[in-house]
């Protein structure tokens, strides 16, 4: 068995570690019967194996070893919250999914409206938008004009009285300043938006007041030359 003899170190180590195949084991036993040198080595190898086993027996880690390793790992390499992980966790919640669906629908709705150019908003929303728009216009108008606008509102209210008495007064005075404010209900929305209705109201306010003032004093309004006054427009 020259092969076994040449490789005796490997074979003996494998033999004491029970890593030999059946054929190798048989071949080794045959060789050990024939070779005294290898037989002595085999005995030493068994003693060596026993001594190493004794040395390492007391060095095995305790039961809590794995826990300590895990704890140390978690302490030394804490998990980092990346943006991707955060987004994935966020999308797992039902509320986020619903909110995302609502946002998507709104975006599609607005895109469709933008592409078609149609105002597809519901009436309630439309009215509220107009109201907010007119209030924003009021805010943009200077304060003195706002006061004028408030007076115009008063004037418009008074105008109804004026126009109600217009027949008598015009008969009596035979004059009119030629300015009659239209009721607020017939003022075009575009005028409200642009604020022209308010400025018109200011002018009307001044005119109506002048008429009333002169009427009280028993005078004829300016620009009235008797029967040549222009008729009051309704």
């Amino acid at each position, binding site marked *: 068995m020259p092969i076994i003899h040449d490789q005796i170190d490997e074979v003996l180590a494998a033999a004491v570690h029970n890593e030999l195949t059946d054929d190798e084991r048989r071949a080794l036993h045959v060789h050990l019967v024939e070779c005294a040198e290898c037989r002595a080595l085999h*005995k030493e*190898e068994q003693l*060596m194996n026993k001594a190493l086993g*004794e040395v390492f027996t007391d*060095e095995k*880690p305790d039961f809590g070893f*794995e826990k300590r390793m*895990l704890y140390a*790992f978690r302490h030394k390499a804490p998990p980092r919250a990346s943006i991707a992980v955060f987004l994935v966790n966020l999308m797992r919640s039902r509320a986020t999914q619903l909110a995302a669906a609502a946002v998507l629908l709104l975006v599609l709705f607005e895109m469709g409206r933008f592409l078609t150019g149609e105002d597809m908003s519901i009436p309630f929303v439309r009215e509220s938008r107009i109201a907010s728009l007119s209030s924003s216009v009021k805010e943009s108008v200077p304060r003195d004009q706002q006061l004028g606008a408030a007076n115009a509102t008063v004037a418009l209210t008074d105008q109804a009285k004026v126009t109600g008495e217009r027949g008598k007064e015009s008969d009596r005075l035979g004059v009119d300043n030629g300015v009659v404010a239209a009721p607020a209900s017939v003022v075009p929305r575009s005028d409200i938006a642009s604020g022209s209705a308010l400025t018109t109201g200011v002018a009307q306010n001044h005119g109506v007041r002048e008429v009333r003032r002169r009427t009280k004093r028993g005078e004829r309004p300016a620009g009235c030359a008797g029967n040549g006054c222009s008729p009051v427009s309704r």
Partner: protein
Amino acid sequence: MIDEMDSADRDMFRAAIHGDREAFEMIIRTMSRPLFAIAFGILQNREEAEDVVQDSFVKAWKSRWRVREPERLQGWISTIARHRAYDILRRRRTVPLDEQLKEFAAAGNGSESPDDERHQQVRSALATLPELYRSAVALRYLQNMDYATIEQTLGLSNGALRGILGRALASMRKRLKPALAAMI
């Protein structure tokens, strides 16, 4: 031996490489003791071996992207542990390890039993082996691993371990001849 890895382990290694922390912690549970054996075989110091295992896992986690084949992850982590242990050993190698062990034994109370003395001699003989040999011996005797598992853990090719362990035990046998004779 790498080809013999089952698909579950391969999936676990692949997941760990891709950043699955739970998979990596599972690897820590399964590989802590083998890594301890590797480190202890080199350093022969329990505290230092534990530090090596901790550092190796942290380093492996931080640079796991370097491993392209999941089958090689185990061997790669073992290599990290071996290198780390070797670094520590080099740092304290101003005095040879076998002499350190002799000094440690001499620092004892002097009333050691013959078994203790023999154990010390075995440790000294072990310290003279190359690091890879020591790791292989420790995995075999500390973890009772079979050859295939040791080869897989150390990333060795099929059949290489037989020669390593044969040479390791032969070297120790020659050094410990008188002590072994006393054991008979």
